[in-house]
């Protein structure tokens, strides 16, 4: 289903042509990208383990994890506290390095990249939405949205950005500072930023964790739309079964292992499974 939605969306909007030009010559992955529409790359973990501490005090957060997160899909990662779900997300997103094993984004083995290459990869290929503190307090919403593009020293694709801003209903909030925005608005600005640079993949770490349910629903709806309509690949860590139900697929983690997965999840099914896991 993921593949079909990607194809259905490919090249259908004028905005995507903008995407091609913005990638040209700057994106070192552009050679592998289709000229018609950018391939939304998959993310893979192969035998990834992560240990903290040394000696007797060593704690394994992840143990030999193999997962593939399909391109063009909305994947949720669930699990009880301490299951390693956030750790896995950090590894996949290039925010942290595995103790052993390999992480791939598309064809690139990101676990072997040096800090600079990894940073540029995050800047150009990955979008982030964190639970809180997503925005720079000194910048307006508009400036925050184009932050990664500005860091790269590029001009934002104005039409593309405007379309995202419109989808998120932020048009009349663009000049406001983060302190002048509600929590929900702040997270929507973060979502706009995550998509503004047309990343290969968007990672969201408990994006609704600090939101009221109405704002949460709004944000999840948007992420869902981004996948369905724009063919964006989204990976989200959450502990909320309702949030997980927006995904195409849910991975369940416990004690550092992937213990199960569920396609086309519903909130009730996820909740049942979580109870079964003993969370």
């Amino acid at each position, binding site marked *: 289903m993921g593949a079909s939605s990607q194809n259905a969306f490919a090249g259908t909007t004028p905005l995507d042509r903008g995407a091609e030009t913005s990638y040209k010559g700057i994106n070192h992955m552009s050679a592998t990208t289709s000229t018609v529409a950018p391939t939304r790359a998959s993310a893979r973990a192969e035998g990834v383990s992560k240990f903290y501490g040394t000696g007797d005090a060593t704690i394994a957060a992840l143990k030999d994890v193999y997962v593939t997160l399909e391109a063009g899909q909305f994947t949720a990662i669930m699990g009880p506290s301490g299951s390693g779900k*956030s750790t896995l997300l*950090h590894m996949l997103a290039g*925010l*942290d390095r595995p103790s052993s094993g390999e992480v791939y984004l598309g064809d690139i083995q990101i676990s072997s990249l040096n*800090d*600079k290459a990894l*940073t*540029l990869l*995050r*800047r*150009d290929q990955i979008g*982030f939405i*964190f*639970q*809180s*503190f*997503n*925005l*720079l*307090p*000194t*910048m307006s919403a508009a400036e925050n949205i184009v*932050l*990664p593009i*500005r*860091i*790269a*020293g590029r001009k934002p694709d104005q039409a593309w950005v405007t379309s995202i801003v419109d989808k998120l209903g932020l048009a009349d909030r663009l000049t406001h500072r983060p*302190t002048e925005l509600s929590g929900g608005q702040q997270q929507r600005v973060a979502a706009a*930023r995550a998509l503004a640079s047309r990343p290969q993949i968007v990672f969201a*770490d*408990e994006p609704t*964790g*600090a939101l009221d349910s109405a704002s949460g629903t709004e944000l999840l709806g948007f992420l869902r739309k981004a996948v369905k309509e724009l063919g964006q690949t989204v990976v989200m860590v959450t502990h909320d079964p309702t949030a997980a139900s927006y995904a195409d697929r849910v991975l369940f983690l416990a004690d550092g292992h992937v213990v199960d997965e569920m396609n086309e999840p519903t909130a009730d099914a996820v909740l049942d499974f979580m109870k079964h896991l003993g969370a």
Partner: protein
Amino acid sequence: MFTATLRGMLAHKVRLALTVASIALGVAFLAGTLVLTDTMRLAFDQLFGKVSAGTDAVVRAEAAYSQSEGISTSRAPIPASVLNQVRQVDGVRTAEGAVSGYALLTDNGGKAVLTSGGAPTLGYSLPADPSLRGDVKLLSGNAPSGAHQVAIDATSAEEHHIALGSTIKVLFRGPTQEFTVVGTVGFGGEKNLGGTTGAYFDSATAQQVLGAPGFFDAINVSADAGVAPAELVQRIDAVLPDGTEAVTGATVVKESTDAVNEDLRFVGILFMIFAGIALFVGSFIIWNTFTMTITQRSREIALLRAIGATRRQVNRSLIVEALLLGVLASSVGIGLGLLVAKGLKVLMDVVGFSLPSTSMQVQPRTIIVSLLVGTLVTVVAALVPAYRATKVLPVEALREAVPGSGNPSRKRIISGAVVTVAGLTGLFTTLYADATMKLFGPSLLAIIVGVLMLLPAAARPLASLIGVPLRLRGLPGELARQNAMRNPRRTSSTAAALMVGLTLVVSMGVFASSLKASFGDVIGDSVNADLFVTPSSTQAPGFSPEVINAVKAVPGVGAVAASGWGEARFNGADSSYAAVDPATAAEGLNLGLSAGSVSALGLNGVVVSQSAATSHGWKMGDVIKGEFAATGAHDLKVVGIYNTKGWIGDDFIISIAAQTAAAGQQLTASGLVKLAPGADQATVQQAITAAMADHPDAKVLDRKGYEKEASGFIDKLLTFVTVMLLLAVLIALLGIVNTLVLSVFERTRELGLLRAVGMTRAQVRAMVRWESVVISLIGALAGAALGIGLGLGLSQALADEGIKAISIPGLQVTLYVVLAAVAGVLAAIGPARSAAKVDVLKAVVAD
């Protein structure tokens, strides 16, 4: 609460180190100054004590008043006949006449043995009785005897390879003579007497070359066993003729010591000013640190308040923290003070103010004063931030801490403006409305304080302006600019420390530059000379009057106007005076006489300056009472009033003959040479140089050479002052490091976010670096502007003294600003590195 305070301090080692350093450096300067002055004082005490040990009583001429000039007190000589009377007194074991005076040694090559820093070059009579020599000991050879023998201080002998048995020339006020070196002399354990050179002769020879035959400067007396000095003094006094007195040896030592202490007090005050500036700048850093840490700790403070800590407890815990910090910093400072004392000593040597030394003196007073001052400054600087901390509400524990913008209050801007305007008004009143100069200092201070108060309001626009070029550096540059603008109060108090330092450095630079620029004009206006005869060392007091006679004899020399100077009391007030040769003064000097003439000076005339005449209402023919220490009061008749100060800056001019009569023969300070018509300047200069071969105490310069030498001296002084002020600049830079460290700490999450969304480490470092540059440039530019203004004001205030030209050393000021920017880059190295190392995960994972 106390242990919490202590733990909190130890948890932030870098912050602790930086704040400690900022205060410790100021305290070190203070302690170093105290140590140095105590050491010098003791060195002089020892020196005088040593020299006169064994002398129980001294007979000397009564002085009209006690006048100190360097380390000697000028008194009239006493007739040698008094010596016989003294010897008759019961209880006198032995008594000898003593003579001392100017004596400049030369080495075997005929070159002058000059002292560093213009310490006196002296000649003495060496007592025949060793008990009267005090600590003056023959280290080798014999005591001099007869008209052709001399013993010299061991340092001169060693450093200039003057062997026993060799013949050297010695220069006096009178004719130069040749002597055979028969001995070397030491002083206790030292090989010289506080950096001076010494030539020792037997009593008769000393009278001949240093004083006058038949006269002594003083008679030194040693008592019989069992006779107390006070008793002896009484007995001697009974037989003395009028105009002479007997005092104990201890009294003489005390007088000399007091005289030197007076001079040292000035050195002490000078250094104290620099120490004060350093502490003032340091206090900004304490203020800043406390303000920032309180913002960062507001949740912690709020939590304490929430669980029941009272405002007073919060306040007290912060004051205790400041107290601990102050004590720690002061202790470190006292330790560093010893190094500073040594450094200052070296610096003074380099600049040419050599002083005797002994082992470093750390008095309890030094420790107490340093501890008190350092701690007090720290606590006072922390008072306001600590008071603000008490305003943190308990409910803030639950809020996400967003560092406040710290905009300056309207009240502060208004009062800052009022203070600045008041200072400016005071300054202009002083300069142009002929008000008293008393307002000058306070006016300058008011301007500095006012600008400091206004700086926060100016910080945002300044940062915005300075940051404009940073936009070209992309987003890191733009963020750096925004970060610098984001908390104007913090930015300004960080920059203010640098501003104060630079204001002082630049104003001194402008002043010195104007002084140098005026120098040529001053000489041009007040002197008609073609060539200048000056002492061979800029700090030497003068040269032998013999030199003038030698120069006069050179073919091609038209006239030589000699001048000297001295101190006396005119109309009851101490003042310096100039002594000129009435016959030639009019040729060499352009005094701009509005009445009378110099040639009318004679033995009882005086020419007064127009300003002195105006303020005292003196007119031609009036009689002014001039009191000289050696000879008492003389009536001086006003025979002229002069306008052009410059070469001569004194209010009173007398003739050299009058000076010799009233104060004894003195050294000549300068000789202005006017060429004979048609003579070639270069040829004559060469001829004069040749004629002065026997007078290594003087040299001849053309006008350009003279100006260069004089400005070289100004440059030396400027270097000295600048080096002193650099300490304040250094402390200011520590402050920038400190602010950046705290800002980086405060912005951990932001930095993490920026790194997560793709800012490279290099970009993060650039961002911190540019912010640092913006802050330092705010301080540097504000300081440069203010410094130029104050420097011009200072020059203007001294326009009457001849500083008529105004010169801004543009290149020098630009260099300072560029260096400040470079220093900003350096200050950012550490903070930028730690900013680049921020753990992305820690920043983005909610706690």
